[in-house]
């Protein structure tokens, strides 16, 4: 009986080999899925599913201003500490406003100090540390972060991957509004060299 069972197992094994051949033959005749990079690039439909580094999302009415409310949730939740969010300071009151405020205070009224704008003063991102886990994207309460479709990332220096996301958003808004007639990906200000 064991012999018959062994034969059965052998035939089963042979059949599985034939199935394997079928799988690779189908792959052989199917069209290739890679592109010849310098001559052709990946089309937009395929790019849409690509998760590159994170980037800021602009407001619906002002695309150059991020939706970000500078709460710092992303930086707090980031396991690799690659995000830095700096809040804006409240604007200094002009001398007239100052005197007006002092007078109001002297009258015993409740003074309303000018509030800081919610969007961040600086939003820098170190892609060389990022593990693309997406925790920042998930934790953002304002939906201001998303993965970019930037696949052609290359640089000569680690500093090339320190991005100023605010500058990047402004560049994207500019190229979308048509101020630069030929949007060239390399002209996008994506690095913050010298901490600018």
């Amino acid at each position, binding site marked *: 009986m064991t012999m018959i069972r062994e034969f059965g197992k052998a035939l089963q094994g042979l059949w599985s*080999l034939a199935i394997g*051949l079928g799988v690779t033959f189908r792959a*052989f005749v199917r069209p290739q899925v890679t592109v010849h990079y310098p001559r052709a690039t990946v089309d937009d439909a395929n790019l849409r599913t690509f998760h590159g580094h994170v980037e800021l999302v602009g407001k619906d009415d002002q695309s150059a201003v991020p939706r970000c409310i500078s709460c710092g949730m992303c930086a707090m939740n980031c396991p690799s500490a690659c995000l830095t969010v700096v809040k804006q300071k409240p604007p200094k009151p002009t001398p007239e406003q100052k005197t007006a405020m002092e007078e109001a205070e002297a009258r015993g009224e409740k003074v309303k100090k000018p509030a800081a704008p919610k969007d961040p003063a600086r939003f820098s991102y170190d892609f060389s540390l990022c593990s693309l886990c997406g925790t920042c994207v998930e934790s953002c309460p304002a939906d201001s972060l998303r993965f970019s479709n930037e696949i052609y990332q290359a640089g000569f220096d680690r500093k090339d991957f320190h991005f100023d996301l605010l500058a990047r958003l402004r560049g994207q808004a500019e190229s979308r509004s048509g101020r630069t007639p030929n949007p060239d990906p390399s002209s996008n200000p994506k690095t913050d060299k010298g901490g600018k």
Partner: protein
Amino acid sequence: MTPPFGMPLELFTIFLALALLAGFVGLNGLVLVYLERKVAGHIQRRPGPFEVGPHGLLQPLADAVKLVGKQLITPRCADKWLFWTAPIISFAPVFVLFLPIPFGPMLTAMELDLGLLLILAFAGINVLALCLAGWSSENKWSLLGAARAVAQSVAYEIPLLLAVLAIAFQYGSLNLSTIVSGQGAWPWQWNVMVQPVAFFIYFVCALAETNRAPFDLPEAESELTAGFHTEYSGMGFGIFFLAEYANMIVVCSVATVLFLGGWNGPAAPGVWWFLAKVYLLLLVMMWFRWTYPRVRFDQLLNLSWKWLLPLALINLLVTLVLVKL
């Protein structure tokens, strides 16, 4: 007929055939390298070599130039003589192997009554070359590779011989031309229909004898870095490489002669049918390589001793009974 240079005609044709075969083997090496990379590319749904020349056609040539240009290094403690004899021993028998193969009705380098025996005898020399290469390299990976090569080759030689013997009994001849002319033009008249088991055993053994995947244990680049040719640089490795491809053509040619009707074919029999069948078998070998993972060593030996050998014996016995009936 007076042959040139006062040589006997037989000798002259053999020299001419050897020169042509050298060109054929070299050219085939280039074509097969290109083909293998393209097959691998298409199975993995990528283009394969594409940059050098139209559709990457000049890539194997560029590879060859690079390989020839590399420095030849002998390891410090290696046995220098054996180390450099090994690639020559591995390549030299290839020419002998091609001699008795009938490429076409008139295209045989040397008409031999013992052609099949000659091929089987000289095919074994390759193992000696691998053994020498592994031993003389003074390197444990090479040595392990050589040991595996010997075990594998000895194991698979026996079922291969038995499978071939069944065909020889059927025709009562070891002359390859006789075996080819005994088969008809159409596929159902070929030996593969009469002896499918023998063909199966032969092809599996041929894969193992030429160290092709899934039986590429002697060089096993993931476990033994490159097995017996770990220490060979430049053309030292290149010759082993070329010999492997030449051996692939030999085993596929013998399979074509014994099982697929050789140069016989519908419409116009000739060398093109022979080459088409050989290349079809080579493509199947490449297809196998990019489909199957490498077997483990005990699986390799079990397959040979426990399955192929008894199967070949039974096949041989059945053939004997049927021939004598």
